[in-house]
């Protein structure tokens, strides 16, 4: 069969970006980021079981600027993955397929994840007595 001038199926670049599309791709991206978070959590648990000296070292990494940025990013990834995961569960039940509701629910996941991330870090600093 000739491969010449045949029509190609449309790929990602022909679509206009929307919240529903961003949320779908971010679900995978945040899921992958959370795998890094799982490794860090394991490291932290091992450090806790190892003893106070090594634990202090690992806490020191977490307390550094880079450490906090990473943890902040993982918090956002977690909240975004949680929200869009719940949205997917509704879609698995056949809900949220109406275009407007679909887009609105996608936008709501961003509202939730941003507010929840800020809320968690605000509460954390409050508990530490920094704020």
């Amino acid at each position, binding site marked *: 069969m000739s491969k010449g001038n045949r029509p190609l199926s449309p790929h990602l670049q022909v679509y206009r970006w929307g919240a529903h599309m961003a949320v779908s791709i971010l679900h995978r991206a945040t899921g992958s980021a*959370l795998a890094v978070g*799982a490794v860090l959590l394991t490291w932290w648990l091992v450090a806790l079981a190892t003893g106070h000296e090594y634990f202090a070292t690992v806490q020191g990494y977490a307390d550094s600027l880079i450490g906090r940025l990473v943890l902040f990013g993982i918090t956002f990834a977690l909240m975004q993955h949680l929200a869009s995961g719940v949205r997917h569960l509704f879609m698995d039940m056949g809900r949220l397929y109406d275009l407007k509701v679909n887009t609105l629910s996608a936008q709501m996941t961003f509202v939730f994840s941003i507010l929840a991330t800020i809320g968690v870090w605000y509460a954390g600093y409050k508990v*530490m007595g920094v704020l």
Partner: protein
Amino acid sequence: MADMKTPLAKVRGLGSAKDGTHHWLVHRITAIANIPLILFVVVSFVGNAGKGHAEWVAWLKQPIVSVLMILFIANMVHHMRLGLQVLIEDYVHDHGLKFASMIALTFASVLIAVLSIFSILRIAFGG
């Protein structure tokens, strides 16, 4: 006509292992179980923010906390493995590399789970 296919080619021709539905379903079930577990983890980490080694150990030593953390690790790692498996299936096209990635993912997942759960148990039963 005689069958000219090798046994390996015959098996490959059968297609998928037909366990996609189970994979999909377990991914959702672990997702649902993750919701209350991750809320517990987040609330605990925020509530204990800034604490030192002794306080974290005392927190994790509580039987309910040890059990919930083990449940979280087991469920979360299972969910993670299923999700990353789909990523490998979708994006790694080379046959050998895909196979190696799958094995590596499984080994890494089991290692993460065992290291975490062993650490929790060591603290829970430690002096």
